[in-house]
């Protein structure tokens, strides 16, 4: 395991941004690859270039809520920006403009964050409330659908948006102890989900593998740091399950960029190289892979394209340069082997239907 980047904050790999700022609650991509975006504990959003130099005016009260809650998600899609907190959510046009050009509308429902979906929509996981999606209907009108189960037995915590080879939209959900859920998505339709429940497994995150040959391939992560690698979340095949002795602590996030997989736990950031190698003919999950780890206590992390990883700390942000990381494969990476882990004896498949309830979101004039 490498020394913590906290001890040498500016290196070839790492750069410290926002040093000393203890009010940040989210860090990630800005619109159209223009830099980074940050959210604060008081509900504001602001923008910087790739070196962390702020530009433009911050957007205060970004969820148009009565509460100054901590931003927990920002996403950009088709010219719109969505912002979420545990208390509320909003969609903005011209969010990065100044003053009166900004136009926003609020949905008023708290969520665990927001992602930009493949079809121009936003997906917001609502815990046992289900999944909220927001689509632009006209320049000032958005349709909001909340897909939920009356039994409230599916704790939707994270979502991934995937597009099948035939263009169909797929949503895959990490639903905590309710399992992994996946289904085809059409705006306004009930969500028919296939849920993979595994007794004792707490699914904390999910992300696309990013394979062009296998567009429905995904990684899921459990709270005890098991990684499940699906070659196709919709084909019903069992994923390959991996577990690494070196991954201590509680798992928070899993992300994939190029040949790298990033796993953030309460103790460290783990980087795995070429966990999956895929081609049109094959999808191979490697149990022996080069890997490296960085000791740090982080709150969250997000990718900015395939170029940067932003790691949010209690007092700032660390920027990891993925291009430089790719050059470091011989020096810092060591081979690790996943332990055998069979959790399938406790697995069952459950079919669920989440009805969609429609409401309107009007962008203020």
């Amino acid at each position, binding site marked *: 395991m490498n020394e913590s980047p906290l001890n040498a904050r500016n290196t070839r790999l790492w750069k410290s941004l926002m040093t000393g700022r*203890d009010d940040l*609650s*989210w860090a990630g991509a800005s619109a159209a690859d223009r830099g980074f975006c940050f959210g604060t*504990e008081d509900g504001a959003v602001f923008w910087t270039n790739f070196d962390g130099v702020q530009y433009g005016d911050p957007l205060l009260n970004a969820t148009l809520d009565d*509460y*100054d*809650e*901590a*931003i*927990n998600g920002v996403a950009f899609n088709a010219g719109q920006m969505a912002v979420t*907190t*545990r*208390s*509320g959510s909003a969609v903005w046009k011209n969010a990065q403009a100044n003053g009166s050009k900004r136009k926003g509308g609020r949905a008023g*429902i*708290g*969520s*665990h*964050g927001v992602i930009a979906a493949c079809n121009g929509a936003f997906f917001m996981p*609502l*815990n*046992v*409330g*289900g999944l*909220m999606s927001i689509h632009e209907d006209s320049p000032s009108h958005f349709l909001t659908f*909340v897909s*939920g189960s*009356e*039994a*409230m*037995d599916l*704790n939707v*915590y994270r979502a991934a948006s995937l597009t099948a080879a035939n263009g169909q939209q797929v949503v895959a959900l990490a639903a*905590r*102890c309710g399992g992994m859920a996946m289904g085809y998505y059409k705006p306004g339709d009930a969500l028919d989900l296939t849920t993979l429940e595994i007794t004792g497994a*707490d699914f904390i995150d999910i992300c696309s593998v990013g394979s062009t040959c296998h567009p429905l391939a995904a990684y899921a992560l459990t709270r005890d740091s098991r990684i499940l690698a699906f070659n196709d979340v919709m084909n019903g095949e069992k994923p390959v399950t991996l577990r690494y002795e070196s991954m201590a*602590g*509680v798992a*928070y996030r899993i992300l994939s960029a190029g040949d790298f997989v990033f796993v953030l736990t*309460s103790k460290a950031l783990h980087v795995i190289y070429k966990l999956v190698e895929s081609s049109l003919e094959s999808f191979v999950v490697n149990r022996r892979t080069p890997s490296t780890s960085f000791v740090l*206590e*982080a*709150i*969250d992390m997000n990718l900015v394209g395939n170029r940067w990883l932003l790691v949010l*700390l*209690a007092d700032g942000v660390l920027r990891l340069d993925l291009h430089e990381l790719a050059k470091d494969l011989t020096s810092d990476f060591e081979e690790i082997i996943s332990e055998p882990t069979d959790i399938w004896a406790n697995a069952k498949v459950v079919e669920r239907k989440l009805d969609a309830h429609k409401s309107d979101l009007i962008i203020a004039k």
Partner: protein
Amino acid sequence: MHEDTPYPDSTRHSGYFYLMTLKHHGAGGPTASCWSLAPVDEFRVFDDSDFHRIVDSKGRIYGVLKVGDELQSIGTWQQEVAIFYPPKPPGRWHGHPLFPVRAAIAGNLKRQRMKPSKKVMALLQDAKLITPRQRKRLAKGDH
């Protein structure tokens, strides 16, 4: 549990007595927030909450369960923060895990809104029941 169950012990700080309510142990319908802990651990969260006096303006107290450095899930929806309500004398306190995000649905969860408040989470941090990092994660709804 088939009925509300009084816990036999009282808290070490204030001598409060506690009631494990049926509502928050599976009989309250789908919107009732339920405990996932053994009775002894549920009471431990209450006892620690009273000991550290994490109190809001309405006299409700708040707590978490830690094993080592890590916050533990205390509810069936993997919640990590509990709220406890003062009784009307001579009754007993009762409590339940808090929902992490403001719910879209009607009923109990919608009324919960922003609990714990940012102020309560700051008190939890000041009492060293949670770290600054854990406070920030809870503030984001990352239970």
